[in-house]
C-alpha cells in the first residue's frame, strides 16, 4: 500500500510536468494549427541556459534566465520562421519545426559534451517523509508549481484579453481578424507561453528524482512523452492536455514499477495508440467534421 501511494504521488508529479509540456503544445496548436516538433529543443535550451548561468547568478537567478530564454527562443522561432511563411500549410510548418529541433538539439548536446548536469538544485535528491511514506521532493514541488501555473493559465485563458482573443482566433480566424484581433500578437504570445512552460518543466525533468539523468539528449527524449500526453487529451483541448499529462505520468510510474523500466516508455505510447483507435481525435479533442 505504501509503495502504491508512493507510486501514485510519483505519477502525479511526473504527470504534472508532462501536463506543462502538453499544455504548451496544445496552446501552439490552438493558435496556429501547427504541431511543434521543436518542443523538446525548447526544453533543452532552457535547461542549458540554467547550466551556463548558474555559476554567476546562483540557481534561482539561473532558473529565471532559463525559463525566460526558453520562452524567447519559442518567440523567435515563431517570429523569424513561422510568421514569414503564411502561405505554407500547417503540415509543412510542422516539418519546419523538425528542422529547428534538429539544429538546436544537436548544438546543445554538442555543447554539453559528456557533462550531464542536474539542474533541480532547490528540490533534487531531498526526500521527504510524509506519514511514514518517503516521497521525492521534486515531484511534490512539481505538482505544486504545475497546479499554480495551470490555474493561472486557465484564469488568463478565460478572463484576460489575450485568452478571449486566443479562443476567438481558434474558433474562427477570419471572423477574429474582422473584429480587430491581431492574429500575430495572439500567435506570438501562444508560442511565448509554450516556451516558458517548457522552461519550467526542464527544471524538474533533468533531476535525479525524475529521470536519474542530467541534462542530455535523454531529456529531449523524455520531453517527447508530451506528444502522447497532448494527443491522448486531444490536440486542441487545454483541459485534455492536463488529463493527458497526468495519464502519461501515472502510466509511466506504474509500468516502471510493475513491468519494467525499459517497457515504461513504450507503455505510454501504447496507451496513446489505444486511445487513438477508440477516439481518433483524443479524449476531449473536437472531432473533425468533413463538409463536402
Amino acid at each position, binding site marked *: 500500500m505504501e509503495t502504491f501511494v508512493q507510486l501514485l504521488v510519483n505519477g502525479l508529479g511526473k504527470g504534472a510536468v508532462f501536463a506543462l509540456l502538453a499544455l504548451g503544445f496544445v496552446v501552439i496548436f490552438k493558435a496556429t494549427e501547427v504541431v511543434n516538433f521543436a518542443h523538446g529543443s525548447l526544453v533543452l535550451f532552457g535547461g542549458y541556459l540554467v547550466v551556463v548561468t548558474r555559476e554567476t547568478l546562483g540557481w534561482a537567478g539561473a532558473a529565471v534566465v532559463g525559463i525566460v530564454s526558453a520562452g524567447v527562443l519559442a518567440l523567435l522561432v515563431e517570429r523569424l520562421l513561422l510568421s514569414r*511563411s503564411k502561405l505554407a500549410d500547417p503540415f509543412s510548418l510542422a516539418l519546419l519545426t*523538425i528542422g529547428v529541433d534538429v539544429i538546436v538539439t544537436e548544438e546543445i548536446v*554538442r555543447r554539453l559534451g559528456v557533462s550531464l548536469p542536474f539542474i533541480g538544485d532547490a528540490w533534487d535528491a531531498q526526500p521527504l517523509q510524509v506519514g511514514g511514506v518517503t516521497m521525492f521532493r521534486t515531484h511534490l514541488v512539481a505538482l505544486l508549481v504545475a497546479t499554480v501555473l495551470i490555474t493561472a493559465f486557465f484564469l488568463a485563458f478565460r478572463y484576460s484579453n489575450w485568452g478571449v482573443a486566443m479562443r476567438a482566433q481558434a474558433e474562427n480566424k477570419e471572423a477574429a481578424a474582422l473584429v480587430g484581433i491581431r492574429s500575430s500578437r495572439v500567435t506570438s504570445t501562444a508560442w511565448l507561453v509554450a516556451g516558458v512552460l517548457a522552461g519550467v518543466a526542464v527544471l524538474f525533468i533533468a533531476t535525479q528524482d525524475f529521470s536519474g539523468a542530467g541534462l542530455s539528449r535523454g531529456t529531449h527524449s523524455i520531453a517527447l512523452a508530451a506528444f502522447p500526453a497532448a494527443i491522448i487529451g486531444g490536440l486542441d483541448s487545454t483541459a485534455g492536455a492536463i488529463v493527458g499529462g497526468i495519464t502519461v505520468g501515472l502510466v509511466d510510474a506504474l509500468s516502471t514499477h510493475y513491468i519494467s523500466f525499459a517497457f515504461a516508455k513504450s507503455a*505510454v505510447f501504447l496507451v496513446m*495508440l489505444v486511445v487513438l483507435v477508440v477516439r481518433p481525435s483524443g479524449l476531449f479533442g473536437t472531432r473533425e467534421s468533413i463538409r463536402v
Partner: protein
Amino acid sequence: MSEIATESPPTAPESPPSPVRRRGPMWWVRGALWLALLVLLLVLPLYLEAQWLRAGQYMMVGAVGAIGLTLLTGQAGQLSLAHAFFLLAGGTSYTVLSGSTEGGTLVGFGLDPLLSLVGAVVITALLGLAFAPVAGRLRGIYLGVASLALVFLGLYFGQAAETLTGGTSTGRSPTPFSLFGFEFSNEGDLEILNVPFRQAERLWYLFLALTAIAFLLARGAVRSRVGRSWRAVRDNEPAAAVMGVSVPRAKAGAFAVSSAYAGLAGVMTVLWFDILKPDESEFGTYGINVSIAFLAMVIIGGLGSVPGALVGALVVNGLPQVLALYSTDLGWFTGTGEGTFTPVLISSFVYGAAIILVVLFEPGGLAAIGRRIAGRLSFTQRGKE
C-alpha cells in the same frame, strides 16, 4: 472498339497521343542521362577505393528507404515517423530467417539469403498493414505522432527479444548475402580487369540492383492507377471516395508499400554494418533520429518525388560519410572530447537548415528546382528549332 484502336494509329494522326508520340528531344536527353548515370555507377567500383564504395552504399540504403517514405508522405499524404521501426523489423527478419539453425540461444531458420530478403520485405509489409487500422483513422499530423509509438515499441522489442536480435550489448551478425552460391563477402578470389572484387565491390552491385528495382517500381506505382489513387486521397479524401477510390485501402496500401521499402532498407542496413545491433536509447541506428533523417531526405528532395528522394538520400546520408572520408585526408575533425564538431553533427546542421529553407522558400524541394531547370532547357531548345 479495341480492334479499331489497334488499327487506327498509323492512319489517324489526331488520335489520343500515345506515349511514343510524345517522345520529344527532351525524352531522349533524359534517357541518355539516366543511361550515363547507370553506366557510371556500374564502372565506379573499378576505380574507387572500398571506403568510398561503402559511402556510396550507405547513400543507396538511404535512397531505398527515402523512396518508400516519399510514396507514403508525399504521394499518399501520410506523415510517418515510424520508418526507423520498419528498418529494424526488416533487418531483424532477415537476420532471423537466414540465421543458422544451430545458433544456441539465437533463433534462426537457416533459409536461403535471397528467400530471407524477400521474406523480410513481406514481413515488414504485413507489419505496415497491421498498423493500417490505426493509420486509416488518423490524418496528417496525428498519424505522424501516432507512428512515433512504433519507434518506441521497436526500441523495447530490440532490447527485450534477445533471442531474435542478439540484444543491445553484443548484437548479432547476419548471414552474408549470397545469390545462387555466390557470396557477397570476402570469400573466394574474384578479379575483374585486375581489380580485386571483395565485399565492398560485390555489395555495391547488390545494392545498386536493389536500388534500381526499388526506383523503377516506385516510378511505376506513381504513374499508374495506384499512384493516382494515393494522390486523390492526399488531396481530398471525400472527393477521392466519390470518384470510387477506396480510401482505407489506398491508405493501407501506401503504408504497406512504404514499410516494405523500409524493410528492404533495413536488410541493407544490416548487411552494410555487417551486424544487427538494437539501440540502447531513442538515438541510434533505428532511433527517432533515423526517422527524422529519412523525413529530411524526402523533404529536401521534394515531397512525393521519387528522383528527389534519391538526391535527398545523397545529401543526408552521403554528407556525413563524405565529410568523414575527406576529413581524414585534410585533418579536420581531429579534436576529441567535449564540444567537437563531428561529420555527423555537421550533416545534422546542414539537413536541419535545409528542411527550414525548403519549407520557407521552395516547398517543392529540389525536385521543383529540377523541374524548373528542365522546363527552361526544353523551352530554349524548342525556340532554336
